[in-house]
């Protein structure tokens, strides 16, 4: 290694560029696309004149002589008393956008601050950073974390002496607000509330956090304070919209980053196909390993992101085998993930900052906030699941004045395959919208309940919700938890409602997954109610971070699943019969071929059994029974159907039509999850007719089967009317607001699915496009992929006019 970066010596080629040229030359077939983001110069502004002298000193002691333009803009908004949201790239100095105004306020005795981070680890990081700045300027600011680990005797000091309290939404919900009188002093002097990593507050969690903020504001009003709210977020399409719906007030955006950026390249990498019939590609792992070795040999610092802890260990082992064979020399490769001791992680972070690590392999643990200095190359082993997370991770590489390289290595999942074939996704504005629905009835009800415990409600009071508050109060009155007296509604029972409400789910009662290995009772995961029956039945293989566990027993009422690690070479797939009935159509569009609509549906899911499927070959190696009650759900959905005449013309065989619909649904489901920035489990899919008379499922022969209400098989050709539809539904009771925007993007979903299937490298269909296909189909040349394309082609012909209500 030269003592100084070659790139800074005129005449020497940039080593990052060299590496990327080398990779492109050797692996042209694997590289689907290359994107280049040009370098950007820094935009500075002077430190604000009104900045406290001590704070100025602290900044200068840490080498900060001026601010980036976005930091200065945030400062101005703070001084104007506005709520604002900062959305700038990773490592652009986001934290100073709130730390500066907050420290100024604290130093001048103008008020305290509450910081909320989605996780404990980030909160602790943040305090460490604040303390450094504090020390540098001898500011005398007291910043404390307040979380589940804070010892009982320290809590009082945090409440009464803390200038900045750093916590998380769950603590605010369960420990702070229900005991707000103990925090009276703190709330009375509160000037700022900061929510960092705002993009994590979406979906169910987001709906809860929005209501939590309603509760917080109610308590703050009780103590006569109205602090400013500051949000920070990774890149999403709609930061202002999200911040506004979280807060229920106007929020001003800060989006133009003044931080410098070197040139950034991104290679989209698809492992080579090794079995074209089955569509099987070389593993992402082997490709990732190869690229990381190239980078390390070239003397570049790299970070590898893997999607599971297990994969982190596997990749680390491979890379250590290559680079750390000589034990006398300091190790060059490190792993970083949750589950390591905090001290160990801090040590690795330190080594990263001082540049003594050549390659670090990490889970998403390093994706958020943690300061690790800057690196040259970032390799993503598999698509992280969202564009925001992808950028967040890629942002880990890139020195300010030097180019960086990112490589996204696709796995075989549909999302991965879709992404590498649609590089446009990475350009321009992020297509992902973070959605929340603060009006979700059950979530709202839970928080009205918690709020009533915190302070009595009075007539005419508003909770910031659209639905009339009084009706919720009447409901709780009927339930016996409230008592009405004159114009007030008082909490009445001996219960602590926050304990019964988890911010991460809708239905009450998450399931705990308990590992009984070695007689232990360690909780290793939490599964929300709606996905429990299809993942935690006895016999199921439950994957945690890619490590397989087998469910031994399920305590349905106690909401516990007991598991044990296993070495099974198969995974399990529940056979779920989903029956849908359309209750109400809210809106619809139609054309001569298709109809698309959005509305409320009633859904019954029956779990009849499960299949054991061998890895790689996807062959079915056995069955098991599931004994669980039927699950019913009212939710909202979007559905697509083809006019019967058109369908018959395109696909005369009803059997083929079923297979086509099932394949199309599979592809549309994955694309929709991607476009909605949600987990695939937040959306459900079904194929059937809208009256709930029959529904389609994939039988053991791989072929679509038509089943009636009780799950008995029907012969498709002997049914009367045949109007199959693809349903994508919001997989939470009452919905969490996914299906309405999904309806708005229905054309994009269909187009995306069509592209996914069209451009897949398999011959007859594979798990990357229309779902697993049986080997027998391949032998006979039966192509579910073609059928799905026919269906999707019709969907894509596009509805043009309004479909009037009947």
């Amino acid at each position: 290694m030269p003592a100084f970066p070659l790139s800074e010596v005129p005449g020497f080629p940039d080593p990052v560029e060299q590496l990327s040229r080398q990779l492109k030359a050797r692996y042209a077939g694997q590289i689907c696309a290359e994107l280049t983001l040009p370098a950007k110069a820094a935009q500075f502004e002077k430190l604000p004149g009104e900045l406290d002298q001590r704070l100025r000193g602290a900044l200068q002691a840490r080498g900060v002589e001026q601010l980036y333009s976005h930091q200065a803009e945030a400062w101005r908004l703070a001084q104007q008393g506005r709520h604002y949201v900062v959305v700038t790239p990773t490592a652009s100095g986001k934290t100073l956008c709130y730390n500066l105004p907050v420290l100024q306020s604290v130093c001048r005795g103008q008020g305290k601050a509450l910081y909320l981070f989605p996780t404990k680890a980030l909160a602790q990081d943040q305090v460490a950073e604040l303390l450094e700045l504090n020390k540098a300027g001898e500011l005398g600011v007291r910043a404390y974390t307040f979380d589940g680990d804070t010892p009982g005797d320290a809590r009082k000091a945090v409440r009464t002496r803390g200038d900045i309290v750093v916590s998380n939404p769950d603590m605010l919900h369960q420990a702070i607000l229900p005991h707000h009188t103990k925090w009276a002093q703190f709330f009375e002097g509160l000037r700022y509330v900061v929510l960092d990593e705002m993009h994590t507050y979406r979906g169910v969690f987001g709906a809860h956090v929005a209501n939590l903020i309603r509760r917080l504001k109610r308590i703050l009003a009780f103590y006569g304070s109205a602090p400013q709210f500051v949000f920070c977020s990774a890149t999403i399409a709609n930061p202002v919209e999200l911040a506004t719906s979280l807060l229920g007030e106007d929020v001003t955006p800060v989006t133009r980053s003044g931080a410098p950026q070197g040139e950034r390249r991104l290679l989209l990498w698809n492992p080579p196909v090794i079995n074209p019939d089955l569509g099987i590609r070389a593993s992402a792992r082997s490709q990732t390993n190869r690229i990381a070795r190239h980078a390390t040999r070239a003397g570049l610092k790299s970070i590898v992101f893997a999607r599971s802890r297990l994969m982190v260990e596997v990749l680390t082992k491979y890379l250590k085998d290559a680079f750390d064979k000589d034990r006398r020399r300091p190790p060059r490769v490190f792993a970083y993930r949750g589950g390591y001791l905090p001290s160990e992680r801090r040590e690795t972070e330190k080594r990263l900052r001082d540049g003594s690590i050549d390659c670090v392999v990490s889970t998403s643990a390093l994706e958020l906030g943690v300061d690790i200095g800057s690196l040259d190359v970032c390799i993503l082993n598999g698509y992280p699941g969202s564009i925001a997370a992808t950028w967040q991770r890629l942002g880990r590489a890139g020195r300010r004045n030097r180019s960086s390289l990112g490589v996204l290595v696709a796995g075989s999942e549909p999302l991965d395959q879709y992404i590498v074939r649609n590089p446009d996704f990475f350009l321009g504005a992020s297509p992902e919208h973070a959605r929340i629905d603060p009006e979700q009835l059950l979530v709202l009800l839970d928080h009205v309940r918690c709020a009533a415990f915190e302070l009595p409600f009075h007539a005419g009071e508003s909770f910031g919700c659209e639905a009339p508050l009084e009706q919720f109060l009447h409901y709780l009155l009927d339930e016996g938890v409230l008592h009405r007296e004159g114009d007030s509604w008082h909490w009445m029972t001996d219960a602590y409602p926050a304990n019964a409400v988890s911010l991460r789910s809708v239905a009450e009662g998450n399931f705990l997954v308990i590992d009984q290995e070695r007689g232990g009772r360690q909780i290793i995961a939490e599964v929300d109610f709606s996905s429990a029956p299809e993942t935690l039945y006895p016999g199921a293989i439950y994957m945690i971070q890619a490590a397989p566990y087998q469910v031994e027993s399920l305590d349905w009422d106690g909401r516990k699943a007991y598991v044990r690690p296993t070495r099974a070479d198969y995974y399990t797939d529940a056979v779920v019969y989903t029956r849908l009935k359309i209750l109400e159509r809210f809106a619809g569009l139609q054309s001569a071929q298709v109809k698309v609509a959005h509305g409320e549906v009633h859904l019954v899911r029956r779990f009849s059994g499960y299949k054991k499927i061998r890895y790689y070959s996807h062959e079915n190696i056995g069955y098991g029974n599931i004994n669980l009650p039927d699950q019913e759900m009212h939710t909202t959905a979007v559905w697509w159907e083809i006019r019967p005449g058109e369908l018959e013309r395109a696909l005369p065989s009803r059997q083929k039509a079923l297979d086509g619909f099932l394949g199309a649904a599979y592809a549309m489901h994955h694309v929709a999850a991607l476009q909605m920035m949600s987990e695939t489990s937040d959306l459900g899919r079904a194929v059937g007719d809208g009256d709930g008379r029959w529904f389609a499922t994939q039988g053991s022969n791989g072929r679509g089967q038509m089943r009636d209400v009780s799950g008995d098989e029907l012969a498709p050709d002997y049914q009367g009317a045949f109007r199959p539809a693809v349903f994508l539904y919001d997989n939470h009771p009452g919905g969490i607001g996914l299906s309405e925007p999904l309806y708005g993007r229905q054309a994009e979903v269909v187009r995306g699915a069509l592209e996914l299937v069209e451009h897949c490298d398999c011959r007859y269909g594979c798990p990357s496009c229309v779902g697993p296909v049986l080997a027998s189909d391949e032998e006979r040349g039966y192509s579910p992929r073609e059928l799905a394309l026919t269906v999707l082609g019709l969907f894509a012909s596009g509805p043009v006019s309004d479909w009037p209500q009947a």
Partner: protein
Amino acid sequence: MNLASKIDRLRGQAVTAQVDPSGSRRRRFQSEPVPQLPGSAHTKELTDALQADWEDRGLLLCNRSYRLPADGRNAGDLSRLPEVCGLSKPDWVYIDTETTGLSGGTGNLAFMVGVARYRDGGQLELRQYVLGSFAAEQRMLQQLFDWVGPDAVLVSYNGKCFDLPLLTTRLRMHHIDIKPGSLRHLDLMYSVRRAYRDHWPDCRLQTAERRLLDIQRQDDLPGAEAPAAWQSWLRRGVTSQLARVLEHNCQDVVSLALLHRCLVPVYRGSVQTGLNHAAIGRAWREAGQPKLARRVWESAGERLDDKGSLQLAALYRHLGEWSRAEKLWLRLHARGNASAALALSKYYEHRRRDFCKALDFASQCPPAERQMRYSRLKEKMGGSLQLPLLVYG
């Protein structure tokens, strides 16, 4: 569709269809509205049932007076407990609350508060405030703390962790600027626990009543049922249970006063068996009362445990009563107590300057001390010492 049936429908599937065929989990309370303003029949019923006076807008006050069995003690004697010793003319106020819940947090309140203090004649004047409605709470809190006053010494049972924090929370909820946390406070639960923890199965107030005061409650409403009693008054105007809560609370407060009197002789060493003398002596010692500590420790005689004996010996040493200390250490040493060996080694080395004996005891000290003492003693004895091998072994 109205909101309630929508929610019911959504929650219907949150539970499963088969587990709950009725479809609805809700218990509907058919509550008759209870008129809350004075003058109504319900109010009359409540005042009659509780034999209380209607104060104002739903607040009830029940006054009683008790003459406690004479025991020749005056109020000043009652401060002979470690937490309150040295108080001059303390104004004791006994306090106990009945609350709507035990879970803590802002959603619970005290719907009944019983307080009592001694009057000049020596009789105990008891006041019980009862909420006939939520609206009366603010008035109750104000009247209560007006009556208690700023100089009272509160006496409670587990009030430090329960009753007072709860009242503090309620005061804040009503923006009343009173901080009861700043009042002096004697929590008898700690006094009882200290003395009896190792001798009783539990230290609840009723256990103390039975064992120390010989009180057997008749037809007592268990404390856990108190919230339901108040609810049935609010929801349905039922007064009978609330009357029983009133009796329960009254007994609690009177028991506090009796227990307080009863604990004074216990803490003065007048009782020889069935209690933890060592801990009581320690409390006196920490309260800066070595004489009382000594009296309690000595009253235990041979029954004093090792820890207590060591502390008593340390007290003798402190007072210069060396022979007493030595005697005690030797007794402990005979029982194999290593700390006593250390004390003896120091005593022989520094006080008696008998290095041989000091060395002998040093060999029986805890290992951490042993080596250090050995080297020093060796030096003092002029290096002529042969160490037994086992010392280093």
